């Protein structure tokens, strides 16, 4: 499931990221922020105004704001216990 569609407050593991949907610099910044395959994520807050963009997500112990377009490239799965 795309992180963009994930209900709030549900912990998931990142299964894959479709790097073709985002720019190189966005991809590099994502990885520098620790958002890559295997990381645990959770959507915390949805944005303001129409469009409910951007999203506040939690990766590890860090809260990061990303736009929906980027969140749509992140595919999540339920963590194996």
């Amino acid at each position: 499931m795309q992180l963009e569609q994930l209900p709030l407050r549900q912990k998931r593991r990142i299964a894959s990221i479709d790097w073709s949907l985002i720019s190189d610099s966005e991809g590099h910044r994502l990885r520098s922020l620790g958002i890559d395959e295997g990381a645990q994520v959770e959507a915390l807050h949805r944005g303001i105004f129409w469009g409910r963009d951007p999203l506040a997500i939690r990766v590890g112990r860090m809260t990061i704001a990303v736009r929906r377009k980027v969140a749509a490239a992140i595919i999540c799965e339920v963590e194996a216990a």
Partner: protein
Amino acid sequence: MMVAQPLIALVGNPNAGKTALFNALTGARQKVANYPGVTVERKSGRMALNDGRPVELVDLPGAYSMVPDSLDETVTRNVILGQQEAQRRPDALIIVVDAGNLDNHLRFTLEVIALGLPVVVALNMIDLAERDGLTISAEKLSAELGVPVIETVAVRKRGLDELRDAMAALSANAGGNHELTAAPTDDRKVINARARQIAKAALISETAGRQWTRRVDSILLHPLAGPLILFGLLFVMFQAVFAWSDAPIGWIEGAMEWLGGIVASAIPEGLFQSLIVDGMIAGVGSVVVFLPQILILFLFILILEASGYMTRAAFVMDRLMAHVGLSGHSFIPLLSSFACAIPGIMATRSIMDQKERLTTILVAPLMTCAARLPVYTVIIGAFIPAQSVGPGIGLQGLVLFVLYLSGILGAMLAALFIRKGITKSIGSSFMLEMPRFQMPRLRDILLGLWQRAWVFLRRAGTIIFAASVILWALLSFPNVPEDSDMTQAEYSIAGRIASGIEPAVRPIGFNEDIALALIPAMAAREVAVSALATANAIDDSGDEDEVAQTLGQRLAGKWSLATALAFLAWFVFAPQCVSTIAVTKRETNGWKWPIFMVTYLFALAYVAAGITYWTAVYFGLG
């Protein structure tokens, strides 16, 4: 033989508490400058190790990676590798990590350790991690990383002695020039996995801690409450600039009057007395009076930044700014530009998208900076009655709010035109870490305020002082003949220059007073006020009644309301600040963009002043 002091650099992710640690280690012995060629701030300071040996400490910009995404990160990388111009390579590094955010901060730590330089890790904010329910073992972390790890709480000065001891051991081991043993690597997959693994190993126990940052966020980032809180906060901020500054402004005015009186009685009447009293004291004093307002504005901005709210404001504003090709990233520099466009333009270096960065630089001067406040305050004070238009809302404050709003709307429209017309796309991106909320430390805020106050006073003592004295000379010569019916200001060189300019600005309602003030105000906007003050001070020497009047009262007697409003509208847009133009040239590597910026802003200023003037005249205010 002179032995250079060891140079130690503080590095780490943004929000690791680096600056608080830097302040705790160096105290007030700090120097803020720029790296040559780039507008990234270089903060350095001196400190003594426990055995008394002096060390130079430099605080590098926060970085997520040794492979840079932004100008900030580029500088950090270059300094660490010894590739930054005019900056020797640090002999050792202190890597600052947030104990409550280990898996994220260890990535950069691993990249830096891999270089093979002498390092010590400061496991910072260990108290906040404990509050969050985390127990972390510094020994295990040290064993995994293979470097010394010291627990610190910078804001409470915990662990500083131990850190200084570790630094002493480092510089003893370093023994001069350490070679880099490896080039920076960017194998993210390996580094990220290793960081997660080490963070897990160092974590002894984890209990569900208090999650109040998350709870506060659900209010501050709420789709409806979030924007309301942000706009409420901004409104309070701008009202406070006026409401809280009354008393201190009175004190400064009193002090200037007292000083003028002393000088006037100590120096015999004549040209020299006029130079000191009318030129220096009236000119510089009319600007220094605005120090309280500027400091109130910076106080708000510093608190918003230190508490972590600024990034929430960026989150709230992102969607709105996306419509004009900007993002939440641009919001932070633009808000800083309300204090001064120069730090604002410098703060754009953290914007990843280069077109978005350029656009932000070009519209930053439209944000109402503190230098406009002197102009706005004098004119509003003189022409807008101090009456209430609602509970807690004064008419003067409301007019000020409208001026701020005009600047913001102007900036949004300009951004849209620039993105559509010049950069041809309005794509932007937004990815921002939102740190935990923190109580701002009084000491850090005061230090920040002191640095801003010093920059302002230095400007008043140099640029504004020089402009005041030159203007005084231009206004004082040649002497008006006894039998002339012209005033001294009209007869002087400055007056003649002004009458040359006046025809060009007459169509937008400007008079000779304004034409005279506009030229020296190119140096800095607030000089417009000191120019008006000096011109008026020279004109009424001798008339006791007029001397007692304030500048505002004099202007109110001479200008029409329509002219005053047009003057305000002009200053919403006009790029009258050489420092901003210079910093734009440096940041955009050439004259193309500063020339574009100056041209479009003057055009906007002329049109806005004209529309304001003729609309006001139509309504009978001329």
